[in-house]
């Protein structure tokens, strides 16, 4: 009993170490005073200060946040609609195909998604002149297409777990079908929509591959900026930036987790 638990604890410690030591070292070196990223030269927060004086980084950051917020919002709207159609509209023709196509971006290699979207935008531009310049709009569209798959999956599982007679009861009490969606369905799947939005937000914020394909000159997202900087060698301000991103992503995921957890027991009891 005792032995076994010691074994389990050491496996656990090893597993966590494997996962988090790289992250911890990034955070650790972000407080490094030395200009050389891997040589410890005393504690300092000066790289954080430098970070906020760097126009390029700030531009990239605001672009990333704008893209993340708008693509997450669009993905939540479309993903919720897709989830609703899959669960509540019965067995229409082509349902299996639709269901497969909704979830396929989850398994599609990002390179393929990025490349195909780039080809689409290029041919669209040739056909009717839009988008004239690749940047905010194209990246947002690209992120929406893959993030809505995640939202659709989350909303779908929530809807499947939801008692369908709740909606029937509303209709029975005199509520018209469209109104039922706003009165009953949406309030009850709101937690799933919120965690879907947060997930879509972090996915967009993280994405490097797809954004690289569909962005144009002068519109670098934060991951793209970091990646291009790192190619010239790791500088300490990147460590500071990475630490901040880790913080933001963890907080977002924590909120998503709390939102789902808080509303789950109510649904199951």
């Amino acid at each position: 009993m005792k032995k076994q638990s010691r074994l389990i604890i050491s496996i656990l410690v090893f597993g966590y170490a494997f996962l988090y030591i790289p992250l911890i070292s990034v955070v650790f070196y972000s407080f490094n005073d030395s200009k050389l990223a891997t040589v410890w030269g005393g504690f300092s927060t000066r790289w954080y200060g430098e970070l906020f004086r760097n126009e390029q980084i700030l531009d990239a950051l605001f672009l990333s946040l704008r893209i993340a917020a708008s693509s997450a919002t669009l993905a939540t709207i479309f993903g919720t609609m897709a989830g609703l159609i899959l669960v509540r509209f019965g067995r229409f023709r082509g349902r299996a195909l639709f269901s497969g196509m909704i979830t396929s971006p989850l398994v599609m290699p990002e390179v393929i998604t990025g490349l195909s979207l780039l080809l689409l935008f290029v041919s669209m531009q040739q056909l009717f002149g839009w988008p004239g310049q690749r940047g905010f709009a194209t990246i947002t569209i690209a992120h929406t297409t893959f993030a809505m798959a995640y939202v659709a999956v989350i909303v779908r599982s929530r809807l499947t777990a939801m008692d369908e007679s709740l909606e029937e009861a509303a209709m029975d009490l005199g509520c018209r079908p469209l109104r039922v969606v706003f009165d009953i369905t949406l309030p009850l799947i709101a937690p799933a929509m919120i965690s879907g939005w947060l997930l879509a937000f972090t996915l967009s914020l993280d994405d490097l591959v797809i954004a690289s394909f569909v962005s144009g000159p002068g519109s670098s997202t934060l991951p793209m900026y970091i990646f291009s900087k790192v190619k010239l060698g790791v500088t300490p301000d990147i460590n500071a930036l990475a630490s901040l991103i880790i913080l933001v992503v963890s907080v977002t995921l924590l909120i998503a987790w709390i939102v789902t957890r808080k509303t789950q027991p109510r649904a199951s009891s």
Partner: protein
Amino acid sequence: MSEKQKDFIRIRGVSKLFGDFVAVDNVNLDIGRGELFSILGGSGCGKSTLLRIMAGFETPTAGTIEIDGVDITHLPPYERPVNMMFQSYAIFPHMTVEDNIAYGLRKDRVARPEVTARVDDVINLVKLGEFRKRKPEQLSGGQRQRVALARALIKRPKVLLLDEPLAALDKKLREHTQFELMAIQDQLGVTFIVVTHDQEEAMTLSSRIAVMEKGCFLQVGEPKEIYEYPTSRFVADFIGTINMFEGTVTQLGDETIIVNSAEAGTNLHALGDHAVEVGQHVCIAVRPEKIFISRDEPENADDIKVRGVVDDLGYFGNLSLYRVRLSSGKVIQVSSQNRQRSAKRFVEWEDEIWVSWRPRSAVVLRD
């Protein structure tokens, strides 16, 4: 009673097919105003589908439904003068008890003072006063059931449909709630249609019962009629316990039928002018409580008497149940009321005894 409309609900030739599967098969039924009508059947017999057709959640493949002279077959659920209490109760988890109950009236844009007054009324009716501000997750099963009932009653529907209203409650609460349900129905005079698989529930609650099997009604009648005069083996067996003796009709009298049954090991006679012929295969069915058990041969010459051995006996306080093995090997059930207080049993295991019953206690079943 007589002025009450007998065909308040008229169901005519209603069928429902799901692909090839016939869920409801050409059902005809009249239900009177103010009745507490039960549809009783096992799972998958089509009773819930029929209820959902009445609520408007399913469209019948064929047939019509009228309520109070109005054809509602193609009305959507939100336009029917019908409300439903769901098996899961379907209480909106994001609304308080009060908001749940008021929901139907708000959807009808009833003026606010009237909503408040009517919510107060039903909340008093179902005794939920102290819980009105609570969220559903803070309620017990019995309280949820009341919320569901109040919510369905507040619009004063012409018909209230109840899908397994008591199935989610424990036994003690179920008995209590059963009588409350009957009292509320009596007080409001609303027509109730209850779907249930629980025959005891149907027997105590209903003014009439329809026994359903494979999408058809096998028998419709008052509980007593269905219990005492079942017309088919399925109904006889489904409602309560019954002993059945297979046999062949050997003789037909004016009022009596004589059936030779190898299972009983003797000729059985039963009363009634049943449409049977000599040589026809029938079944004589007798309820356990109609059978007497005695140590000595019963004196009454008219009675059917068969010898047997006590295989098993169970003491239930108010009654005793016996399993008696007849000489043919058939085991029958007999129950008798324990009228006298006695620590000693008058028959014991493996005792040789007589079982007997009156000819008019037996039912002749053709199919």
